[in-house]
């Protein structure tokens, strides 16, 4: 049986994730000697307090954010792909990311367009998070209500995409009315960033993602059944409507909160489930869910390391890195599958 192989694979991935996580702490635009980093992490006091602060206050929260965001987004993507029976579904499909972007756009751009006080230009951490969450929740509620009326998932998918498209258009209009400063701030937010999740925020992000992932374990059985289609799932004893609602709830909470804290992070939700399916050779969500968690965490940590481009002055947007690594991987996975 492949259980042995899967277990080994899991262990290997976990080790890789640990390495990637630690790499985020070791590497950054400032070079800090390995020994010093270890000393700080193991609780020793080092002489250079600046370095200590950089590691604990700047790199550590960012590393945790990447770890948990990667896990959450991947699980969210897995659920989306199963729910919609669509291999290119991701957290963005339901328009959740657009909703979060809309909330932030209103906060940053519209305020500028209406000539509101410059203080609103200051991107207060919680201000943005609240705005993004409100936007994501608003869209989620729309989709939620729709899912009561429509049982056809394709219809919900299309509506989600159309809402997303409409929102993007409104954001563009707001952009044309806002000042350069506000525009720049909005664009910078849309690049996504793990490392600038604040220390005060990281606790909430970790808590929400943990709850979401635990919830998703509980959803393994319904998700497995949904693979068979609604009719077979129903005849196997699944209560379709409440099951779907719970899945939409779980995925929205994960995707929405992560986007609120880290900005829109592309491709992770889409690519990681495919990689997991290909590596573990199973469709069983009991295995895929933890696989996605570990794989997603690992990939995001690695992308974060790349984004901080250690040794050079250039900051690369995380969003770009995840897309650049995600896209070829998905293509490779699909080609490999079709060849067999």
């Amino acid at each position: 049986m492949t259980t042995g192989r899967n277990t080994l694979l899991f262990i290997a991935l976990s080790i890789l994730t640990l390495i990637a996580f630690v790499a985020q702490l070791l590497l950054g635009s400032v070079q800090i000697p390995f020994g010093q980093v270890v000393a700080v992490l193991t609780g020793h006091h080092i002489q250079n307090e600046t370095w200590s602060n950089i590691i604990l206050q700047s790199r550590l929260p960012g590393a945790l954010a990447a770890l948990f965001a990667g896990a959450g987004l991947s699980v969210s993507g897995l659920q989306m792909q199963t729910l919609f029976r669509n291999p290119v579904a991701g957290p963005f499909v339901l328009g959740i990311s657009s909703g979060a972007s809309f909330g932030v756009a209103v906060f940053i751009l519209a305020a500028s367009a209406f000539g509101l006080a410059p203080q609103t230009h200051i991107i207060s951490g919680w201000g943005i998070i609240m705005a993004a969450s409100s936007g994501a929740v608003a869209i989620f509620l729309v989709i939620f209500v729709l899912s009561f009326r429509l049982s056809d998932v394709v219809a919900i998918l299309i509506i989600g995409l159309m809402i997303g498209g409409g929102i993007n258009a409104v954001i563009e209009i707001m952009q044309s009315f806002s000042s350069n400063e506000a525009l720049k701030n909005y664009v910078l937010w849309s690049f996504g960033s793990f490392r600038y999740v604040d220390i005060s925020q990281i606790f909430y992000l970790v808590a929400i993602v943990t709850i979401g992932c635990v919830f998703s374990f509980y959803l393994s059985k319904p998700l497995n059944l949904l693979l068979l289609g609604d009719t077979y799932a129903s005849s196997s004893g699944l209560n379709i409507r409440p099951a779907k609602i719970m899945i939409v709830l779980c995925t929205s909470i994960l995707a929405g909160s992560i986007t609120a804290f880290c900005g829109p992070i592309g491709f992770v939700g889409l690519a990681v489930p495919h990689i997991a399916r290909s590596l573990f050779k199973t469709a069983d969500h009991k295995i895929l869910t933890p696989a996605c968690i570990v794989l997603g965490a690992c990939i995001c940590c690695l992308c974060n390391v790349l984004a901080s481009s250690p040794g050079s002055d250039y900051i690369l947007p995380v969003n770009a890195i995840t897309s650049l690594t995600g896209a070829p991987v998905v293509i490779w996975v699909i080609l490999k599958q079709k060849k067999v």
Partner: protein
Amino acid sequence: MLSAENMSIGYGAGKQIFSGINFSAVAGDMIGLLGVNGIGKSTLLRTIAGLQPRTGGNMQLNNLDIHAIPAAERAKHISIVLTERLAIDNITVRDLIALGRTPYTGWLGKLNDTDGQEIENVIRVMKIEKLQARLFNQLSDGEKQKAVIARALCQQTPLMILDEPTAFLDFRNKREILDILKSISTDLQKTIIFSTHDIEACLQYCNKFWIMTETGTFRQIKRNENYRAEVMEALSITV
């Protein structure tokens, strides 16, 4: 013991498509459902399976009104095989069959020894030992059908409903499937209801015939002396 009294089927109060349905079935019955295209065979099967409500009349399975019980409970009494194609990547035949154990597994869906035993049994009955480790979407049509039936069988229900299980299969596969279904109904004492257009095969295997006539009446014909003629007559086929 499945029985129906003056049942009507359809899609809501205004859209009744067939009425006056009376039938009875016991363990060991292999029942063929016949009728022209569009008469409502699939609707009837779906209604019996509990997938959609009946629009009138009564129906009972082992003294239970299956339309009034929750899906999880119903799943222990009725299993189905449909015409819709399953398209799942990366699932092995064994894993697919294991999904049939859903009504009996816990919230995580973990399989215990009983489940494992049952899966083994089913694989043996369906004669698909060689297929169990292969990926489902790489099987031939006949093999896929066997796997899907195996999943339904694994659900261990007294009643199994199949919608055109032998359509699109070649002659040999058809015979094989019908043989297996026959043995399931007789050896395992299950009630099997299936719809088909292959009247000959139906006449050969089934011991009961349900016919939805073009005039809108429902006839149940048992395998007595004159059954062949009766069936043909009900189907308005002049021999």
